[in-house]
């Protein structure tokens, strides 16, 4: 709770700095700029404001108004009503871990449960309490790996099939690190991960790949990771956590760090956020992760209790020695993901993942039967795949949008050489009728 200053406190502070009133603190600002006249329309009543905002809101089209096959990092999944209901309870409704954490046992228990679920899904040994989103979690992996080698290894290899926005965010985060060298951009974005190995050398700190990758392709990175390890570098895998309910975890493949976008775990699309950044690693690196680890213990009376077990890189212990002071976690969204996974359970989550897999494979097989259309890759995939269109994919997507369908992600937006490609995502939310309608409209689009 924020407690503002009392009048007495304010006057004591003014006296201490030697000014007579608050206005005197602003004398550095020229008089004419202090209270500029604002050119605003006349004030509206609350009722009128609501009506105006409703009008703006109705101009948006959501996945309730439109059929969507758009993924590319954020996926349209069903979230049980109980998730939202529990999430909004006053006891939980904050994004922050309290600074006197142990007094908030409920919050700590949620983080503990969240960490446990994430380690189970990823096959890792420890998870922090989350980051902003998949992109920032990926950037934290880069910073952590670089710090791990203390300047002895400075090269970070980014797979060109890592989400373009993740790569952009990594560039932003590492701007101030003059010694970090980012590599991998010169490779064929749709080539195989093997090509990354040619870039790995004794200066390499980290190789970061995606699973499934941005183009939906699923690779078993087991051999890849062991080859990277031979050079002494670490491997981070950026994941879609929903896919991990069905496929081999990066932990089983030998990954050192797993990051990912937690949005598929029951978080609404919400026009792009707020989302949830997953970050998990092996025990040997726990002192290098940012954020905090919550542990379960017993109190003086022998009752179960939760504590902040480790905050090694946090402000209040390490301060200037911390390599990242971004400790704000997405507590509320981590809670949502925890509720979602708990409500579905181990088998429920797998079932959702299976539905995604089956529907996406049905869609892929139907689309590949349409004249002029084909699948770009024959690699295994989860719920998203690349389609080669018989023309410009952006034009085709515009045509489908006229028919109330978002056909997918126009790959040319980020990869100018692939203007004829469409990245199509199918989730449990897409009915067979919707998939068939997509195919019919794609077929028509070609004839137009």
């Amino acid at each position, binding site marked *: 709770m924020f407690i503002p200053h009392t009048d007495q406190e304010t006057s004591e502070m003014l006296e201490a700095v030697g000014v007579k009133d608050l206005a005197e603190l602003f004398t550095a600002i020229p008089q004419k700029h202090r209270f500029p006249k604002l050119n605003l329309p006349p004030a509206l009543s609350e009722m009128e404001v609501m009506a105006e905002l409703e009008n703006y809101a109705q101009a948006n089209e959501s996945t309730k108004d439109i059929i969507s096959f758009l993924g590319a990092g954020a996926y349209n999944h069903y979230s049980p009503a109980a998730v939202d209901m529990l999430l909004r309870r006053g006891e939980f409704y904050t994004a922050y871990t309290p600074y006197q954490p142990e007094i908030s046992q409920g919050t700590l228990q949620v983080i503990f449960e969240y960490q446990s679920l994430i380690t189970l899904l990823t096959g890792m040994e420890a998870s922090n309490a989350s980051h902003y989103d998949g992109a920032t979690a990926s950037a934290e992996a880069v910073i952590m790996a670089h710090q791990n080698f*203390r300047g002895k290894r400075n090269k970070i290899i980014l797979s060109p099939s890592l989400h373009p926005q993740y790569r952009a965010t990594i560039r932003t985060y590492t701007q101030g690190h003059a010694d970090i060298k980012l590599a991998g951009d010169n490779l064929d974005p749709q080539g195989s991960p093997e090509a990354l190995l040619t870039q790995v050398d004794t200066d390499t700190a980290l190789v970061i790949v995606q699973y499934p990758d941005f183009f939906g392709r699923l690779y078993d990175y087991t051999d890849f990771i062991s080859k990277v390890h031979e050079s002494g570098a670490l491997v981070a895998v950026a994941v879609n956590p929903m896919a991990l309910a069905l496929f081999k975890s990066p932990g089983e493949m030998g990954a050192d760090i797993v990051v990912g976008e937690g949005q598929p775990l029951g978080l609404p699309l919400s026009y792009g956020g707020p989302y949830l950044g997953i970050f998990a690693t092996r025990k040997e690196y726990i*002192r290098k992760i940012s954020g905090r680890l919550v542990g379960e213990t017993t109190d003086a009376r022998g009752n179960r209790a939760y504590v902040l077990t480790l905050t*090694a890189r946090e402000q209040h*212990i*390490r301060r200037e*020695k911390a390599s990242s002071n971004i400790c704000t976690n997405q507590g509320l969204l981590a809670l949502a993901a925890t509720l979602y996974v708990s409500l579905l359970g181990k088998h429920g989550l797998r079932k959702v993942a299976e539905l995604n897999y089956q529907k996406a494979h049905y869609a892929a097989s139907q689309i590949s039967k349409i004249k002029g259309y084909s699948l770009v890759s024959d690699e295994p995939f989860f719920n998203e795949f690349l389609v080669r269109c018989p023309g410009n994919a952006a034009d085709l997507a515009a045509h489908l949008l006229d028919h109330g369908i978002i056909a997918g992600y126009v790959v040319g937006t980020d990869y100018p050489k692939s203007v004829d490609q469409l990245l199509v995502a199918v989730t449990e939310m897409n009915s067979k009728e919707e998939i068939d309608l997509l195919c019919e409209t794609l077929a028509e689009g070609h004839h137009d």
Partner: protein
Amino acid sequence: MNIPAGFKFAPTDEWVHMEGNIATIGISDFAQDQLSDVVFVEIAVSAGDTVKKGGLLGTVESVKAASDINLPVSGKVIEINESLSDTPELVNTDPYGKAWMVKIELSHAAELNDLMDDKAYGVNCAGREH
């Protein structure tokens, strides 16, 4: 307060003990007492590294704080104490013995003159006690 004779001390509480041209380095009893229970020791240098006085030797983390340990002398690292990663509590129980951190072959022996002897360090510590 245990301040053994024959050891040299840096103002930042690292000790140096010489055998021939080899300096064994750790942190003092005063330092471990200030830190309280040590839970983690990370040595930032590896055998074979050429290191400079003032550089980072490692980090000691206690239940109260994380502190950097500085290199009191320059030279070539010949050995590090691996056992501290599993038994960091040795820093509390045996700071001048089993909790040695690195051994360095000196390249600039004159740097030893910048360090305090046990008597000077005792005075230094006394001035900081409260």
